[in-house]
Structures are given as structure tokens and as C-alpha cells.
């Protein structure tokens, strides 16, 4: 086996085993045919030094996404994984859209663009004290783009949604890198919560990557429930928003952003786990898996933000803040573990990828 073939077979490991069992040898033969040349020296060079081109790797990666995160005609297990990742992407963009809308509204409110309710003097004083960092400016610029990405996805404009989400992520990523570089160079960092910032960025990047599950075979998104969820989010979001403001004014943090996500995840998990027990709703396999997948980043954000509090001099952090954070961590684990067990049982119970019809058909003589 040449090095080139070995490398191409490594790329093919992205594909599900059941698919490889049917197609791998044929794909390898076709690939090696496509690299053939009459020049003996060049052929030898390609065989022992060549690599599959980026375009070839990308085509295999695209096929792997379509097969592993299945669409409407996929086997049930692949479809459940596809639905779960699509739900994670939708929930992620929904959270970004609600947060962005509330953030922009809050900025307009403090700037005096909204007539009601009047801005308390303490809030104005806080807004005027200390310049906005690059992180805040980056966030402000990208905020409306997250809303546009969410609406584009929900209304069926998938390609636009992917481009907009990528666009929204870029300035935040740049701001995070600049902030880290500042810290490394001994300049004042733009935020004292560096670990939290990077985990935030990583989670956003994963949400953008999850959009790959919206490929050509993915079923259409039903817009109504997601638009209702966005509206409900906007109605509920001022509650934690006001709590955050009061905490800053009082210099005592009891509920922070990771805390909100922890409470939301625990509530959603309990409803999902307990719903069928009280005979009210059935469980969709995609949701079991999606909630289990969502528990991981929420837990990571909760733990990392507590570490950041312990390592930095964040404003308003007291022992009670840390105690509440620990309770939230335990609650997320307590709900996340049964969700993961339920998701694993659900997925195991579903038929896995069936072999391609090509394998079941006998070639004609």
C-alpha cells in the first residue's frame, strides 16, 4: 500500500463503518485512478509523498456529515444524531439572538433612545465609568448579525444563516485573540474572565459548526415554534437582565450568565425527563440527545466561570456567589447524567446505518 493510499484511507475513516464496508475499496480505486500519471518519476513521487488535495478531503468530510448527521431518508440512528445537532444549532442561535436583542435594547435604553422606563442614576453612572473594551465593541457589532442568522435559519435560508453566523463569530474571535495577546504582552486585559471568554467563543464556534447538519437532506425547520420561542425569550430575558443590573449596583453577584444557562438547562432537562412520567408528553429521540449535548457546554461554562472568579478579582464575587455556582454545577450534573444515559439508551435502540443498496444488489453478469 502506497503512502498516498494510506493517507486517503485515513481520510475515509471520517465515514461511518457501515458505509466504508460497502464503498471504501471502490472509492480508493477511483481516487488512485484520478492521481495516475504516465510520468514514472512523478507517479513514484505522488505515491510516496503525495497527499489527498484539500478539495478531496472536503468532499469526504461533506459526505461524512451527511451520513452521520442524517436527513429525511437516513437510517433512524443517523437521523436522530442529525436532528440532535440541528436542535443544538437552533437553540444556540436562539440564545445568541435573544441575548443580542436584549443587549442592543439595553444599550439603546441607557443611551436614552427608549423613553420608558427611565434609566436609574446608578446605571447611568456605571455606564459612564470606564471605557468599553474591544470585547464589548466586538459584541455590539456582531449582535444584530446573530439575530439575522437565527431568523435566516428558521425561515429556510440555510446558506445565508451559515454565512451570517460565521460573520458574527469572526469579530468576537478577533477580539478574544487581541485580548489574549494584550495579556501576554503585559498590557491590561479587556476582561478579567479570560477562561470564560475562550469557552464562550468555543461554544459559539461549535454552534456555527453544528449548522453543517443543515445539509441538503435535512428536513425543513418549522418556523412557528422557534419564532414563538424567540418572542418568549424576549419577554423573559428582562428578568435576568434587571437582576444583573441590580447586582452590579449592589456589588453582589448571586446570578450570573452561566447561572441562567444552568437553571434553563436543568428546567428543560427535568421537563424532558419527567414529562412522560406524568403522562403529558412523549420524548422525541432528537431532544434527548440534544439536551445531553447541551448539558456539556453549560457545565463547562459553569465550571470555568467559577475558576475564573477564583483566579481573578471580578466585581461582586463573594463566597455566596461561589456557593451558588457550586450548587448549579451539581444540579447540571444531576440532570445531565440521566439525560446522557437516556440519550445513549435511545440511540442504541434505533437501527443504525443500513448498508447501501449497491451492496445488496448482485452485479449483472
Amino acid at each position, binding site marked *: 500500500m502506497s503512502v498516498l493510499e494510506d493517507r486517503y484511507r485515513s481520510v475515509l475513516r471520517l465515514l461511518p463503518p457501515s458505509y466504508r464496508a460497502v464503498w471504501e475499496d471502490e472509492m480508493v480505486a477511483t481516487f488512485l485512478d484520478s492521481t495516475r500519471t504516465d510520468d514514472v518519476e512523478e507517479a513514484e513521487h505522488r505515491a510516496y509523498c503525495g497527499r489527498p488535495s484539500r478539495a478531496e478531503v472536503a*468532499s469526504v468530510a461533506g459526505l461524512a456529515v451527511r451520513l452521520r448527521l442524517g436527513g429525511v431518508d437516513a437510517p433512524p440512528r443517523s437521523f436522530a444524531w442529525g436532528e440532535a445537532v440541528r436542535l443544538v444549532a437552533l437553540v444556540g442561535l436562539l440564545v445568541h439572538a435573544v441575548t443580542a436583542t436584549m443587549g442592543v435594547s439595553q444599550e439603546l435604553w441607557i443611551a436614552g433612545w427608549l423613553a420608558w422606563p427611565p434609566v436609574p442614576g446608578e446605571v447611568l453612572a456605571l455606564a459612564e465609568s470606564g471605557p468599553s473594551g474591544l470585547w464589548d465593541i466586538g459584541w455590539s457589532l456582531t449582535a444584530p448579525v446573530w439575530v439575522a442568522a437565527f431568523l435566516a435559519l428558521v425561515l429556510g435560508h440555510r446558506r445565508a444563516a451559515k454565512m451570517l453566523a460565521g460573520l458574527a463569530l469572526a469579530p468576537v474571535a478577533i477580539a478574544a485573540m487581541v485580548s489574549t495577546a494584550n495579556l501576554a504582552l503585559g498590557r491590561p486585559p479587556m476582561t478579567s474572565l479570560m477562561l470564560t471568554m475562550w469557552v464562550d467563543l468555543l461554544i459559539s464556534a461549535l454552534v456555527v459548526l453544528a449548522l453543517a447538519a443543515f445539509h441538503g437532506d435535512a428536513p425543513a425547520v418549522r418556523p412557528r415554534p422557534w419564532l414563538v420561542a424567540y418572542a418568549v425569550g424576549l419577554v423573559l430575558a428582562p428578568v435576568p437582565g434587571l437582576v444583573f443590573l441590580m447586582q452590579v449596583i449592589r456589588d453582589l453577584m448571586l446570578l450570573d450568565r452561566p447561572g441562567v444557562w444552568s437553571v434553563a438547562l436543568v428546567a428543560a432537562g427535568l421537563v424532558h425527563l419527567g414529562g412522560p412520567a406524568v403522562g403529558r408528553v412523549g420524548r422525541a429521540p432528537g431532544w434527548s440527545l440534544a439536551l445531553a449535548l447541551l448539558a456539556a457546554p453549560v457545565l463547562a461554562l459553569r465550571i470555568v466561570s467559577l475558576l475564573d472568579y477564583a483566579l481573578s478579582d471580578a466585581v461582586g464575587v463573594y463566597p455566596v456567589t461561589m456557593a451558588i455556582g457550586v450548587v448549579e454545577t451539581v444540579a447540571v450534573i444531576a440532570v445531565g447524567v440521566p439525560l446522557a444515559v437516556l440519550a445513549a439508551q435511545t440511540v442504541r435502540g434505533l437501527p443504525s446505518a443500513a448498508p447501501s443498496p449497491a451492496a445488496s444488489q448482485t452485479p449483472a453478469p
Partner: protein
Amino acid sequence: MTEQAFFILTALVDTPRHGYGIVGEVADISDGRVQLKVGTLYGVLDRLVGGGLVEPDREEVHQGRLRRYYRLTEQGRWTLAAEVERQAANARVAAKRLRAWRPATEGGAA
């Protein structure tokens, strides 16, 4: 029907072909515009086989490697013919409108 599926079906109209043969034929009939990568080819091919439009014809061993040939089924031929008719009808409508179009400065419909 995607453009790639259209060209793969077209490449199989006259004779059964193996994977690399399809790649070369598609490049030829599209004047080099559609260059199928292997992952893309087999992504489309397994769907066409699953949909009954294409079926395996025979297998050969060439230089120690498997070559599986594929041929168009009757259903594949009808489907391609229907797609050709649809695209031709679309092209006729567009061509008719383009012929009728005159810039506003020449007094035609703009």
C-alpha cells in the same frame, strides 16, 4: 435534481462506466466545468443507486483493484428524460423572453 446527479446520469446514458470513468466523462460533457471529487461522486452515486436510477452492472479487477461499473436503469432513463424536458422548457421560455426584449431606449419592452 442536482447538477451533479444530472451529469452523472447523462454520463451513463451510452454505456456502463466505473467511478473514474464517470468522473472523466462528466468533466468532458460539462466542458470541464463540473470536476467531481471522489467523496461527491459516491455521495451522489449511492443516492442514485438507492433511488433505483442507477444499478451496478459488473465488477472488474484492474491493476489489482476493484472497478465496479454502473449503468442507467429504465427508471433512470425516464427520470433523466423528464429532467431534460423540464430544463428545455425553462430554456425555451427564457430564450423567448430574451428575443422579445429590447432596451427601453429602442422602444421595446424593458
